[in-house]
């Protein structure tokens, strides 16, 4: 009977074949670090290719133009009350560069491993730095433009999933379309090949904000990979452009 049982197990193993073996091997020896477990390589320089929402991203839209953003009444009220002069104050200049909107800002990304369990995304537009921790141990009490980001690999989808909280209030669009400190940002990072051996980074951004949004705000942005950092051009936050 034992022999028969063993035979059945062997048959099952053979039938499931190559798909099963690596999985079992992986289960026995999980990668020690997020870097070792990475199903995709996001590191390098990426440039935004602004083929969508050009008018909202490349120039300053007029006050009250929040088409496409599902603001609730309070959100519309805040957007309608936008004061460009107040944004010119140093403390407010980075409002359009917070984590809920930064991937929509035309610019370049530099993605590196800060350490084996921490990805770092820098932006030249606004000179912002995002820290994506795969094993967060402590939560920083102070709210910041980029908040606290927890990352995980979505192995079946070969993607990076990131959740960000603890944000300072900022703008979804630079013309004062608001998100609050209660906002939660969920992002998915995917890769795709492009013609001519290029590579694309696709970032899907989901913003939940019970304060100013009637429902989730979801946009997807895309970036082309660049060979090097020769076009990297840091420019501080600016409320004017």
């Amino acid at each position, binding site marked *: 009977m034992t022999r028969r049982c063993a035979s059945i197990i062997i048959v099952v193993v053979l039938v499931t074949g190559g798909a099963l073996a690596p999985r079992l091997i992986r289960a026995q020896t999980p990668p020690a670090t997020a870097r070792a477990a990475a199903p995709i390589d996001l590191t390098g320089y990426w440039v935004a290719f602004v083929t969508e929402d050009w008018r909202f991203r490349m120039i300053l839209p007029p006050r009250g133009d929040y*088409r*496409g953003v599902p603001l609730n009444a309070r959100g519309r009220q805040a957007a309608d009350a936008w004061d460009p002069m107040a944004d010119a104050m140093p403390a407010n200049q980075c409002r359009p560069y917070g984590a809920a909107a930064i991937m929509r800002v035309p610019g370049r990304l530099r993605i590196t491993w800060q350490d084996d369990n921490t990805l770092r995304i820098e932006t030249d537009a606004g000179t912002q730095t995002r820290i994506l921790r795969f094993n967060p141990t402590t939560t920083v009490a102070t709210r910041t433009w980029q908040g606290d980001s927890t990352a995980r690999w979505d192995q079946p989808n070969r993607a990076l999933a990131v959740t960000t909280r603890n944000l300072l209030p900022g703008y979804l669009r630079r013309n004062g379309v608001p998100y609050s400190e209660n906002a939660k940002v969920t992002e998915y990072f995917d890769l795709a090949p492009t013609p001519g051996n290029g590579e694309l980074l696709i970032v899907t951004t989901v913003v939940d904000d019970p304060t100013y949004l009637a429902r989730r705000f979801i946009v997807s942005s895309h970036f082309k990979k660049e060979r090097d950092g020769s*076009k990297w051009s840091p420019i501080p936050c600016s409320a004017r452009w």
Partner: protein
Amino acid sequence: MLRALVTTCLAVVLALLFAASDSLRAEAELTGSWAALGSEDLAGDTLPVDYTGLPLNDEGRTRALSYSESQLGMIERQCQGWPAFYFVQGPFGLKIWSDAEPVKGTVTSYTIGAWEDRAPMVIWMDGRPHPSKFAEHTRAGFTTGKWEGNTLVAYTTHMQAGFIRKTGPPSSDEATMTTRFYRHDDVLTVLAVIEDPIYLAEPQILTRSFQLSATELSPTGPPCLTTFEGRVPGESTPHYDPDKNPFVDEMTKKYGVPREAALGYPETLYPEYRVKMRR
């Protein structure tokens, strides 16, 4: 003793099958109703000369500027505005279903349902080749697909010439589209890479996200039907001299968009152009 052994044996087999199943079932579930969110690129077709976000070459720009919306009064041109890639650009949700081979149950195709003037898009998964280059071109084109891990990758050829944006920027019958479908929980992000050697200076790249909907979307919509609207077939085609399009500065007057950006020059799609505008 015997019962315990049999139970143990079955448990091991089931555990192995369960462990294997996740690896064997690589494809994401795409079928269902995916609601449009309306949160991206809503301003793309509001003014006659708004080519922002398009990498047009000179030929494409000239054709676009020669376009007059009165062409929609011509029977033979009434359905040109809704090519295959309109499912990524348009305001519609996606109703996706699959058809299976009856004996083995393998998926032979996915279909993205029609919606008001846009033809349904069938993605053939059964390995059939694309037709000869001499084969008929249709509004939907011909699409094959394959799975790359959890991502469905589709490739469309044999589309009729039409518009890459409803306001006149053209697409040729040599255009192709590669589409990728990424599912993350209840969000579906679609990437479309459109190549057109005739009218685009570089591939146009679009991404659009949809949300899984508990409300069923209709799999069909009224097809684009042509009708007589006052222009007799054979009459001249309404158009503008490209150098004298009366709407060429509307984006500049209304929104302050520089003319070269409104006209879809490729360099306006990169961040450096913001710096240039600032100067």
